[in-house]
């Protein structure tokens, strides 16, 4: 993996209070999420990217376990949000790769094999219109359809993932 130009912090493993507060502010001020949705996102928070020059939060990633209905297998449902003034610096790629690596390592070690890969429903229509490769080479995400809201769905499985080895009791995506 290429070296990131951001400082990346895994808040799932080490929940730094200052960064949690920064993520909360980002969702509140730039996305306009209400308190309930912010609380849920904080529970799902995974990686925070920080601009090393300004110490500002450049972006955040979240993941939660659910089963996309059409796939019928549990996946880590992945979201990312990049601050408006950081969108030209590939923070989204860095966040994805750090998030995937962390989940992949846990899967490979047997520490957490509940999800078979990362699954993203991409709401950013600019991304969908301009990055139209069926398979994104940098992230390894492949297009697998469009959901009811018109978001593009992409996924990448973990190495060694098997469709016959997962917990079928995980909740389904709406």
């Amino acid at each position, binding site marked *: 993996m290429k070296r990131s130009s951001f400082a990346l912090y895994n808040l799932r493993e080490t929940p730094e209070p200052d960064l949690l507060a920064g993520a909360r502010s980002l969702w509140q001020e730039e996305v306009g999420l209400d308190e309930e949705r912010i609380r849920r996102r904080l529970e799902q928070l995974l990686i925070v990217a920080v601009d090393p020059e300004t110490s500002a939060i450049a972006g955040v990633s979240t993941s939660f376990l659910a089963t996309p209905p059409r796939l019928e297998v549990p996946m880590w449902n992945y979201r990312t949000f990049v601050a408006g003034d950081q969108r030209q610096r590939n923070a989204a790629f860095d966040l994805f790769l750090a998030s995937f690596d962390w989940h992949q390592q846990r899967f490979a070690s047997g520490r957490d094999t509940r999800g078979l890969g990362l699954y993203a429903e991409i709401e950013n229509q600019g991304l969908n219109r301009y990055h139209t490769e069926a*398979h994104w080479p940098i992230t390894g995400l492949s297009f697998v*359809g469009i959901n009811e809201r018109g978001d593009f769905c992409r996924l990448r499985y973990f190495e060694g993932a*098997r*469709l016959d080895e997962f917990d079928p009791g995980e909740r389904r995506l709406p």
Partner: protein
Amino acid sequence: MSVENALSIETVSAFPASALREEVGRFWMREGGLAEGQLERRLARLRLLARGPDGELVGTCGSHGAAIPALANQPMQLFRYLLTEAFDTPDRAMRLIEAGWRQLSSSPPDDDTLGMLVRVTDARLPAAFPQAVWPGSGLLHAGRAPDGALLRLRYFENRRLQWGGDA
């Protein structure tokens, strides 16, 4: 490879010789896979032949361009195979799928086709090959079609989604 599993796979040229066309036509008639008037259309889609240890024809593979509803009607090469009952095992089916991917990906169609897609309707295949990404071909599990078929796909390099203006 044991004799029991012996299967040789041949690539079919774009314009198969008449003797081969007749052999394949007889095979399809015998195996019940050919309806009236379908011979020329199916020959145009023919890509691979599978032969048993004595050189007898035991299987065929073909592909054709199709818009896939489960993929928002994106254009894919829909890959199909037919094996005689005696030779129809998951291992052999997988060998044909892998050979199909190698052939299609080495010379992808010169059009908007994004990649190769297999509709899996034989429950023995996912039971024998439960990997989310099939190791030989790289075809990944992309869910289930409305009719219940499991979908496996892999994209050719640098192919772009087709929208016709509206995403």
